C-alpha cells in the first residue's frame, strides 16, 4: 500500500514548510531589544551644533514638536490610510523619551525603524529616507537630541484600523520598501546638485509627500515627484507635472524653501509651512543645494499659457456661463472678500497677497489645498515671522465656499471644473 506512506510524507513536508515560514516570518517581524544606557553620553565640541543643522534639514520638529514651548515632546497626529499615528517624545527623558537609548539603538531606529525595545516603528516616521543618512550625520543628530531639555511626555496611543495595530506587520512593508543602500551620488551632476539630492532624499524626505504612495503606503517611485498628499492637502508635483502656472526659477525656490515665501509666486501653507519653518534654521548653502536639485526636476515643466501673467482683477462671469448663478455668487465673494488683499492693484506691502490668477492651489488637480487655504488661512506659529492670511471658515457658508472655489478655478485659472469640489467642501468643516 503506497497511499498512507505518501500522505504521511506529504504531511511532513507541509509541517517542515510551515516551520520554515514561521522562522522566516519571525525573522521579518521580530527585532531584539537593545540594552538601556544608564549614564548620559558625552559628545565632542561642535557635534551638537552640527546635529542641530541636521535636525533642521530632517525637519524633525515638523512632526515631533506640537507646542513650541515643549520642543520635540511629540504628540502630533498624522492621519494615514491605515490610521492615525502620533509622533513620540524624542527628548532625552529616560521614562517617556529616548534618554536611555544608546547610540546603537538610535542608529537602528533611524536606519531600520526599530525602537530601542525592539518594536517596529510605523513608516509615518520616514526611516526609509533617514536610512541613507551618513553615519556622521546620524551621530550628530544623536548628540543633538540627547542634549535637549528632557520633557515628560508619554506617547499617545495610535488609532490604527484593523489589522495595522499589529506592529510586526511593518516588517513586510520594510521588506518591500526599506532600501538601506547608502546614498550614491551621480557623477554626471555637480557637487551642489549631489549635496541637494542627499539633503532632499536622506534628510528632508521631500518625496515622502511629493511622490504618490502605493496602496500599501510605500513610495511609488515609478511616479517620482508626481505629486502626492499630506494631511488632506494636495502636495504639488515637482516635475513636468508641476501645477504651478508660472515657471519656478531656482532663486524663487531657494527663497521659498528658506522663508516660505517666493515673492510674486507662492506662499507656503499647510504641511509645507512647518517644513519651511524647519529649513529656516538650516545652513543657507544646504538650502541653495536643495533648490538646485529640486529645480532640476521642476525645470522639466513645460511653459504654459495661463492667466497668471494677465494683470488686474479677475473678470465677472460671462452672461452665457452655463453655471451663471453659482459663478455670480463666487465672483461676489471674490470681489467683496478676497480682492481686498488679493487684487492685483494693491501696492507691495506686508498686506499684499498674490493676485489669485497666480495662486498655485487654483491649478491643482484637486481642490483640497484651496479649500483648506480659504477656510483656515495661513497662520505662522507663535512668534515666527511669516505671512498671515485670515481664515474664512467661520465667514463663508459651504455654498459660498463651493461657489468661490468653482469661480476661481474657472475664471482665475481657466481650468476645467473640479468634479469632486462640492463633496470635498461638505466633507469636513473644521
Amino acid at each position, binding site marked *: 500500500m503506497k497511499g498512507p506512506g505518501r500522505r504521511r510524507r506529504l504531511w511532513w513536508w507541509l509541517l517542515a514548510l510551515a516551520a520554515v515560514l514561521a522562522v522566516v516570518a519571525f525573522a521579518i517581524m521580530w527585532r531584539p531589544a537593545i540594552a538601556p544606557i544608564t549614564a548620559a553620553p558625552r559628545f565632542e565640541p561642535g557635534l551638537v551644533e552640527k546635529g542641530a543643522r541636521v535636525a533642521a534639514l530632517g525637519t524633525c520638529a515638523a512632526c515631533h514638536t506640537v507646542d513650541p514651548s515643549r520642543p520635540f515632546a511629540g504628540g502630533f497626529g498624522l492621519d494615514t490610510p491605515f490610521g492615525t499615528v502620533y509622533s513620540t517624545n524624542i527628548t532625552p527623558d529616560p521614562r517617556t523619551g529616548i534618554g536611555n537609548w544608546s547610540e546603537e539603538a538610535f542608529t537602528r531606529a533611524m536606519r531600520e525603524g526599530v525602537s530601542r525595545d525592539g518594536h517596529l516603528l510605523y513608516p509615518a516616521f520616514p526611516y526609509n529616507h533617514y536610512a541613507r543618512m551618513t553615519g556622521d550625520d546620524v551621530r550628530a543628530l544623536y548628540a543633538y537630541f540627547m542634549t535637549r531639555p528632557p520633557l515628560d511626555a508619554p506617547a499617545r496611543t495610535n488609532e490604527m484600523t484593523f489589522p495595522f495595530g499589529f506592529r510586526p506587520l511593518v516588517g513586510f512593508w520594510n521588506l518591500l520598501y526599506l532600501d538601506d543602500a547608502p546614498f550614491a551620488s551621480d557623477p554626471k551632476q555637480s557637487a551642489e546638485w549631489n549635496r541637494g539630492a542627499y539633503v532632499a532624499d536622506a534628510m528632508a524626505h521631500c518625496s515622502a509627500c511629493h511622490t504618490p504612495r502605493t496602496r500599501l503606503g510605500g513610495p511609488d517611485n515609478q511616479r517620482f515627484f508626481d505629486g502626492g498628499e499630506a494631511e488632506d492637502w494636495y502636495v504639488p508635483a515637482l516635475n513636468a507635472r508641476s501645477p504651478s502656472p508660472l515657471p519656478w526659477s531656482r532663486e524663487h525656490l531657494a527663497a521659498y524653501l528658506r522663508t516660505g515665501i517666493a515673492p510674486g509666486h507662492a506662499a507656503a501653507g499647510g504641511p509645507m509651512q512647518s517644513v519651511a519653518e524647519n529649513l529656516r534654521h538650516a545652513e543657507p548653502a544646504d538650502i541653495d543645494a536643495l533648490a538646485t536639485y529640486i529645480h532640476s526636476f521642476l525645470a522639466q515643466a513645460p511653459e504654459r499659457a495661463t492667466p497668471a501673467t494677465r494683470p488686474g482683477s479677475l473678470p465677472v462671469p460671462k452672461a452665457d456661463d452655463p453655471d451663471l448663478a453659482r459663478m455670480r455668487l463666487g465672483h461676489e465673494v471674490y470681489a*467683496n*472678500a478676497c480682492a*481686498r488683499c488679493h487684487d492685483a492693484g494693491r501696492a507691495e506691502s506686508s498686506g499684499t497677497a498674490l493676485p489669485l490668477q497666480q495662486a498655485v492651489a487654483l491649478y491643482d488637480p484637486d481642490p483640497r489645498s484651496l479649500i483648506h487655504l480659504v477656510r483656515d488661512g495661513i497662520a505662522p506659529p507663535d512668534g515666527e515671522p511669516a505671512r*498671515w492670511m485670515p481664515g474664512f471658515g*467661520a465667514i463663508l457658508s459651504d455654498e459660498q465656499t463651493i461657489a468661490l472655489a468653482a469661480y476661481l478655478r474657472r475664471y482665475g485659472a481657466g481650468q476645467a471644473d473640479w468634479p469632486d469640489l462640492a463633496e470635498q467642501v461638505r466633507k469636513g468643516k473644521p
Partner: protein
Amino acid sequence: MSYELQVNGKRHRVDTDADTPLLYVLRNELGLNGAKFGCGLGQCGACTVTLDGAPVMSCIVPVSVVGARKIGTVEGLGTATQPGVLQQAFIDEQAAQCGYCIAGMIMRAQALLDQHPAPSDEQIRRHMMPNLCRCGTHMRILRAVRRAADTLKAQDGGGRS
C-alpha cells in the same frame, strides 16, 4: 441692497452695498461702536465679532455673505453699569491700556469660553493669538480671560450645589 441682520438677538434692516464690510454696518448704520477699525485687512483683530458663535474679523466680512447668521458684538455682553463676566474680568485685571483692541479681544475670548468653559492657559494663548495689542498688555489680557473662565466655573459650581 437691503439686508436683514440679527445682531445681539435683535433684527435690523440695513440698506447698503453688497461689498460693505460688516464692521462698517455695525458702526455706521447700527451705532455699535465697540468693534474698531484697525488694519482693514484681517491682520489685527480689533474688529473681531462673533458669527454664529465663532470669532471673525468683521472688516473682511462682506455684509452680503452674512445671511441669517447670528452676529454678536461686545455691546451684547453687558453694559457699563452691569458688565458681563468677561468685561468685569478685564476691568478687574485692568487689561486695557489704550483700549483700542479690547472689544475685539473680549469677543474672541467670549467665543473660546462659549465652546470651552474651562480652557487651559495654553488653549487661551493659542486662541487669542490672531489678535494684536500694540500697548503690550497681553499678560493682563491673558489673566483677564483666565479670571473670567474661573469666575464662570465658580458660578457654575455654585448653581449646581
